[in-house]
């Protein structure tokens, strides 16, 4: 049910000494298009170990493996091992009436509840995962704040996990979830001297203690290898096939959030639905936006009523690539109140010369390639190629792009016999 295609994809290590951090270049927005200004991962890194430039990431060995870069990534192009992935859970899970405390790896096991979920750093949980883990259970997810974050190298502030918890909680709230199922942060201070280490311990120290068993308890079922992140503990290097850019990506964090709210509401609430505004007078139906849309939220539609675009805010990650690429600047994006459905429809048009279906909103009645053909003769191109026009003044108007009678006259060629075309003209 929750299987996705991602585990087979070529996640690669960013640094040979940091196998925990894996990167899928084909899902990275600036890697897909230079129009993207996304640099969330590098911004989120608390120790500036991650540098992002034009879709290539470089990681220094000072990486703490805290997962904050992965939590910030809007498309799930980054993964850090040690964090639960809600895709691999079927919900609702058994034995889920009790609240689930989430602790960081620095907390010693004897200081915490036995059933706790342990993650390298609480700030490395993205809001989608928090929301979905909460939605799958009856009781809330409690992120336990031990009061060490401010002095922790991965934290640097009082409660770095609070932002994504707030996003997840407000998402569930707007979907109508009862308050007891919202994730929350709870302060249970512990003296800093009781911390198991000064910073996030290495995964070897943690896995020895059986993180997987604990998570299995929480899931109430045999979790298998997938929970630890299949293909992540040993990410493939180099040789694996990359996904062509023409394929759409899954944008897992957004999907998690959508799934979580859809367990309570049938649709994604307005506060979580980006709204794509369309200036219908500008749109020329070129569909560049839909091709560039990384998730497929913007789709090309051809049906009996015409051709145009459909928009589904549930898949939209508000990356704004469509807005930036639109040749006519016809789109604008607002953070909320988006509705699913048709965005724009244009009447079907057929080229009056070649009779081809032309998606563009073409006033002159010629498809793009026929317009280009006559465009070569415009602006002095005719004189350049063929010399001065013929002497007969009647035959003067050679550039038929501007001459209504010339190219598309009825009866000029065999194409007029094509069925079902004339009535559409």
């Amino acid at each position: 049910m929750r299987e996705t295609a991602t585990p087979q994809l070529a996640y690669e290590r960013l640094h040979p000494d940091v196998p925990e951090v894996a990167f899928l270049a084909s899902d990275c927005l600036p890697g897909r298009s230079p129009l993207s200004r996304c640099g969330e991962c590098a911004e989120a890194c608390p120790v500036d170990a991650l540098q992002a430039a034009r879709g290539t990431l470089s990681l220094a060995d000072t990486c703490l493996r805290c997962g904050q870069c992965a939590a910030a990534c809007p498309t799930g192009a980054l993964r850090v091992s040690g964090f639960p992935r809600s895709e691999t859970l079927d919900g609702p899970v058994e034995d889920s009436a009790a609240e689930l405390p989430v602790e960081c790896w620095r907390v010693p096991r004897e200081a915490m509840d036995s059933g706790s979920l342990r993650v390298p750093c609480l700030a490395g949980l993205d809001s989608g995962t928090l929301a979905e883990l909460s939605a799958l259970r009856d009781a809330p997810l409690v992120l336990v704040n031990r009061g060490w974050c401010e002095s922790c190298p991965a934290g640097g502030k009082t409660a770095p996990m609070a932002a994504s918890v707030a996003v997840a909680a407000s998402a569930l709230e707007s979907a109508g979830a009862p308050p007891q199922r919202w994730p929350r942060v709870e302060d249970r201070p512990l003296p800093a001297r009781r911390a198991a280490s000064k910073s996030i311990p290495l995964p070897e120290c943690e896995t020895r203690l059986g993180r997987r068993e604990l998570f299995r308890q929480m899931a109430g079922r045999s979790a298998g290898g997938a929970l630890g992140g299949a293909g992540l503990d040993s990410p493939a290097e180099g040789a694996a096939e990359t996904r062509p850019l023409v394929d759409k990506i899954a944008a897992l964090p957004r999907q998690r959030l959508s799934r979580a709210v859809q367990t309570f509401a049938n649709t994604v609430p307005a506060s979580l639905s980006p709204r794509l505004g369309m200036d219908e007078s500008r749109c020329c139906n070129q569909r560049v936006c839909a091709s560039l849309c990384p998730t497929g939220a913007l789709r090309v539609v051809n049906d009996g009523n015409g051709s145009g675009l459909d928009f589904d805010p549930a898949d939209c990650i508000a990356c704004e690539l469509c807005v930036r690429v639109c040749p006519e600047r016809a789109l604008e994006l607002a953070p909320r109140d988006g509705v699913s459905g048709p965005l724009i429809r244009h009447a079907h048009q057929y080229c009056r010369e070649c009779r081809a279906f032309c998606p563009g909103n073409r006033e002159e009645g010629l498809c793009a390639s026929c317009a280009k053909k006559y465009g070569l003769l415009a602006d002095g191109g005719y004189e350049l190629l063929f010399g001065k026009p013929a002497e007969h003044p009647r035959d003067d108007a050679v550039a038929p792009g501007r001459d209504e009678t010339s190219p598309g006259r009825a009866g000029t060629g065999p194409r007029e016999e094509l069925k079902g075309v004339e009535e559409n003209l």
Partner: protein
Amino acid sequence: MAKWGMVIDLDKCTGCQACTTACGMENDTLPGENWQDVLFYTEGEYPSGQMKWLPRPCMQCEDPSCVHVCPTRATYKDPDAGGIVFIDWDKCIGCKYCMIACPYGVRFFADEAPLVEPDLKEIFPGSGGQLWDPPGQSPDQDRKRGIGVQPKGVVSKCTFCYHRVSKAPEGVPDLDEDDPELVDYVPACVRTCPPKARFFGDLDNPESNVNKLIANKNGIRLKDHTGNRPQVCYLGAGAGIPAFQPKS
């Protein structure tokens, strides 16, 4: 590295479209996906109608509009490969922005309903993500340069037959089809042109025949005001059939 250029003599061109056919056979393009096309223009009316034509390959512009607009950097000009403009089919998303931007209309998207029946994509269905499985011999697949059978949903264009041209010996000024040493490296349209209206050579080499032709016969570039600076030049006073002149 050479900067490959093509010269087309419109005084010689007969509009026979052998170049179009040769290109389609060489590169396994679909009907209508004519990387090398001959455009026909009619003017006037019976009995004084005229026909003119213009062979049109990709101009391989020095400053290509298509490269500037590509939102994924899939199309690029490769100065190390003779200044040819290629499409990386792994990066192309089929958005067709390049087709909008190209002033010459020499880019094609074949993954749509065909203009001619039957649809060859259905008769020779492709496997492994390929658009179709052409019955003929294709050049070796080079997805990074847009050579070979194309995958679904990408834009394609003339590559100046890079799979041939790239094998030419270093430093030759011209790829002349009459030279038995070089004939295998000549682009298909140049190789096949029955009236020998096409010439192919190195624009960076002052000794090359193409440069001499452009200089001596006043070669022109199409739509020069766009600043694209094509690497294809036209010679002559145009190709066409003169109008019928009734005796007075």
